[in-house]
């Protein structure tokens, strides 16, 4: 493989594809030096990314602050019952009170409705439709489709509040005015606006102001949207591409589902930024330990609930009225403790096998390692007591001795002596250093980065490095990249991009200015790969057959055309700024060749090149109509056609944008 092809290959596989100029840069420095540098992300400055991320506060807050500023529905319901205290500081208090009012209104409507026949409700849930701020502002309306808000209320609001007056205020004044509204009225206010007016609610505000206003409407969604937005911004703009690619690898390996329960989203920023990313290129055992003690995983795989059947907690409950799991610190009175009655509707406390199983099957040794159901049970016992403190008590990892199963445990042939929290660490160490784990992780890496069917020799070589380096991922990756297999993939072994690869690489290759990353996040949902959006613990498959489907191709082709012709709001492509000289007098043939070089680095096959040009040039009049149509985006069925604020198209001729879209939608750009 020659220099340029090598540089492109390593950027395609070990980064999210090249930006204009990247291939030349890597070629000049050499692949080895690039790799050396990428393995030390701390040495790479990432200022451009930091600047973009400065727009978001929520994803960088600790879970406790996050849940205070953006309370979950559960906390709000608790507050309504007087069981959670409302923050005394502003603007947090305003957010809580707004949510309490909105929740109460919703409950009242529900009660009214329960006497009426149910109506069909086609509105999309704001959390599902996913278009970031726009969706949240729209969601204020969608949430009640089918239950029209009483007109008189809207009228009243219109009467009380000078709606257009508020919109015309400066950002600071508008912010104050919105905060000063009666709790919950902001929802009515947003509902009373035409869709086109809604972005004006938060226009020009600082990130903190914007987050607060959106939190008045739906605080949990702020957390979810911003977490996912920042994740995508990092993938697109980070100079530490290898760390990002490996972070995404581990986020899939240690899959978390954001919709698991109401608490889960509040732990995802921490999981991504503190648990996974810092260890993505480090020692596997450190990563495994960090994941095992992360509230995100403890919640997702239910371990926070798991109780040793012979633990003090369980034995005490045998004779005591019930203390529901998760609500600790309210010991039953001595008198009650004597009653030999167990509440009828309560299950006996005991283990939950979920984490114990997936730890072995998916996180470490793999399903073929020969463990048994009994091993799963014993592993679950080892981790009893590994739980999450309630939000009021910090909400972090906690080892609760009272829930821990006493006695020794035998897991995959190892006897683990009674030792409280230490037992779990011992088992994690046994698993992290097992040859089966070395093999399992190496296989997974090779499938992701080399081939759907990696050779045994390659995987063995990587596993050997894994074992001899205490699971040092940098060393394992070096072994993989320095293997001939990495460079010699024949055609049929080419890897097809996953939706994440595809969307991120398209944004990179076009040098897109992404100011509303949630538009791209939403696109991933359409393409079947929502971020932290797969419920089952095995994550997404990384093999070609998973991602080559009719629906997938259609979504990608439409996305490519919309992207290149600037039909995705908040994602701006400036073709004029792409590298290349002398375009002023270029013929269509020259333009097409130039675009091939920019987007595909000149790798399109000759036959395809001819075919594209022929079609493009054969019927100019008809094509111009098509080109106009694509650019106008008024073609009814296109998912990008409606409701999107269009950014001005560029002076460069429209044909160039369509050709660029065609190349991004081409089969050549589906490979990596």
């Amino acid at each position: 493989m020659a220099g340029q092809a090598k540089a492109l290959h390593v950027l395609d596989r070990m980064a999210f594809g090249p930006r204009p100029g990247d291939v030349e840069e890597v070629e000049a420095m050499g692949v080895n030096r690039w790799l050396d540098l990428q393995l030390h992300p701390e040495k790479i400055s990432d200022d451009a990314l930091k600047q973009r991320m400065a727009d978001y506060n929520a994803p960088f807050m600790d879970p406790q602050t996050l849940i205070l500023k953006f309370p979950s529905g559960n906390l709000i319901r608790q507050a309504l019952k007087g069981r959670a205290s409302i923050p005394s500081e502003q603007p947090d208090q305003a957010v809580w009170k707004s949510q309490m009012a909105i929740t109460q209104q919703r409950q009242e409507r529900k009660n009214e409705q329960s006497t009426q026949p149910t109506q069909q409700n086609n509105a999309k849930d704001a959390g599902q439709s996913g278009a970031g701020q726009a969706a949240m502002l729209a969601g204020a309306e969608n949430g009640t489709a089918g239950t029209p808000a009483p007109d008189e209320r809207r009228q009243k609001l219109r009467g009380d509040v000078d709606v257009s007056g508020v919109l015309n205020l400066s950002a600071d004044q508008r912010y104050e005015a919105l905060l000063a509204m009666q709790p919950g009225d902001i929802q009515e206010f947003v509902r009373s606006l035409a869709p086109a007016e809604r972005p004006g609610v938060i226009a020009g505000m600082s990130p903190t102001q914007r987050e607060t206003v959106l939190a008045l409407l739906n605080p949990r969604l702020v957390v979810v949207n911003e977490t996912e937005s920042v994740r995508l911004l990092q993938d697109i703009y980070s100079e530490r591409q290898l760390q990002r690619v490996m972070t995404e690898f581990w986020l899939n390996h240690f899959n978390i589902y954001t919709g698991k329960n109401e608490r889960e989203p509040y732990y995802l920023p921490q999981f991504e930024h503190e648990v996974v990313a810092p260890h993505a290129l480090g020692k596997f055992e450190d990563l495994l330990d960090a994941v095992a003690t992360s509230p995100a995983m403890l919640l997702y795989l239910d371990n926070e609930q798991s109780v040793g059947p012979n633990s003090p907690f369980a034995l005490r409950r045998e004779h005591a009225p019930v203390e529901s799991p998760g609500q600790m610190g309210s010991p039953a009175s001595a008198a009650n403790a004597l009653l030999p009655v167990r509440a009828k509707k309560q299950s006996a406390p005991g283990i939950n096998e979920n984490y114990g199983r997936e730890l072995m099957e998916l996180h470490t040794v793999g399903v073929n390692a020969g463990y048994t159901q009994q091993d799963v049970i014993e592993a679950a016992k080892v981790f009893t007591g590994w739980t999450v403190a309630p939000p009021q008590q910090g909400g972090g990892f906690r080892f609760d001795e009272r829930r821990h199963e006493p006695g020794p445990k035998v897991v995959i042939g190892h006897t683990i002596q009674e030792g409280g929290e230490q037992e779990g660490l011992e088992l994690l160490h046994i698993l992290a250093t097992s040859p089966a784990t070395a093999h399992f992780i190496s296989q997974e890496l090779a499938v992701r980065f080399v081939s759907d069917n990696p050779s045994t020799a390659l995987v063995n070589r990587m596993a050997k490095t894994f074992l001899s380096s205490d699971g040092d991922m940098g060393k394992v990756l070096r072994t993989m990249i320095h293997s001939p297999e990495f460079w010699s993939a024949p055609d049929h072994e080419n890897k097809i991009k996953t939706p994440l690869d595809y969307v991120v690489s398209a944004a990179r290759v076009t040098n897109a200015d992404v100011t509303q990353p949630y538009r791209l996040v939403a696109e991933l949902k359409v393409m079947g790969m929502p971020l932290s959006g797969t419920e089952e613990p095995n994550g997404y498959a990384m093999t070609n057959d998973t991602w080559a489907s009719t629906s997938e191709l259609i979504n990608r082709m439409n996305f490519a055309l919309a992207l290149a012709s600037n039909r995705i709001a908040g994602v701006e492509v400036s073709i004029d700024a792409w590298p290349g000289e002398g375009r002023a007098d270029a013929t269509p043939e020259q333009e097409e060749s130039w675009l091939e070089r920019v987007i595909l680095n000149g790798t399109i096959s000759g036959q395809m090149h001819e075919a594209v040009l022929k079609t493009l040039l054969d019927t100019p009049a008809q094509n111009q109509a098509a080109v106009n149509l694509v650019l106008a985006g008024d073609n009814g069925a296109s998912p990008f056609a409606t409701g999107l604020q269009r950014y001005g198209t560029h002076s460069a001729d429209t044909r160039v944008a369509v050709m660029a879209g065609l190349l991004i939608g081409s089969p050549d750009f589906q490979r990596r």
Partner: protein
Amino acid sequence: MVITRRAVMRNGAMAVVGTGIIPSFLTRSMFAAEPSAHGKNQRVVVLFQRGAADGLNMVVPHAESYYYQARTSIAIPRNQVLDLDGFFGLHPALAEFKPLWDQKQLAIIHATGSPDPTRSHFDAQDFMESGTPGYKATTDGWLNRALQAERERAREKASPFRAVSMGADVARSLHGKIPAVAMGNVANFTVDGRDPNAAPVSSILQTMYDNSTLSLLRGTGAETFEAVKMLKATDPAHYSPANGAQYPRGPFGESMKQIAQLMKADLGVEVAFADIGGWDHHFNEGSVDGQLARSLRNLSQGIAGFWQDMGDEAENVTLVSMSEFGRAVHENGTGGTDHGHANVMFVLGGKVQGGKVYGQWPGLNPEQLYQNRDLAITTDYRRVLGEVVWKNLGARDMNLVFPQAQLNQGDFLGYLPAGI
């Protein structure tokens, strides 16, 4: 034969269950002409409940006292079960199934599943969908091979919509030689709009895919453009369900609605596959209400909506549900259930001899359980699926569909009549 097995005729339930849900073929088939040729026009819908649904709380063995001992907090109280036959009863959230049962269109197979002992979601789904439990090397899916095994239709020019998989990607069950269309959203299944002026853009892309050196992309590209063309002719953006059918909100209801849409558009759909996720209730599963109940309501409303929407055409449709394994008989320490073994399958169809729970009940007493904890399997799930594709699709080569199973007609449970 065909006439007499009609539910309505047998129990005269017609009058009492006269909700809007009874298709007119039930009333007319009593005097109707002979059934159509073998396998002709028959369609199959396969649903996969991903995450291991709790079969014991879907079809409750309410006469088993041990069921109530093992599930102190999540059991469905006897007086709230929708009794089916004095022994089994439906979870109350499956109320929409009751009329279908009463009309004898719904059959239930209990204590069924894949014989492989794995309790891994991933492996169990993979084995079930490949149709070769225990063999990982199988690359294609059982439903794709069932199409290959069809005797009658194999020679006909196949529609690209012959096999449809709802969602962004083709389900494992449909991987294989016969092309399958993945259908994320019918209304958006087009390349940059429906306007005929967009054709050149679409045709350039088609040319590019035709010339791709990667055969996977070349093949999928060809299927894509052909399917788009066919679908375009049916005005897919404008669909309203018939007979007042209502679908629940969310992806499953959407999938069922789109299956009905595609089937009614006469695109040559023979098999359709849809997923419904969210069954892995390790924690706080709930009983009459709660997490499982919500999932079941979604399931039954989606299916009932589809059935009503299909109307008369439901006569030629058979729908079968499956899930990778069941859940442990005993509830766990956190108000949920851990991974188990046998499960329940539903079969719904115009030709189905329903109103009956098929299969052998292995019992729930501790000594009757699989590995002392799970419902034992008495019916290999391949016997259930084999019967559908043999009788509905005319698939004959069972060794192709389910290698190793050594399946023959004698293994079928008989929930469908011979010679549909």
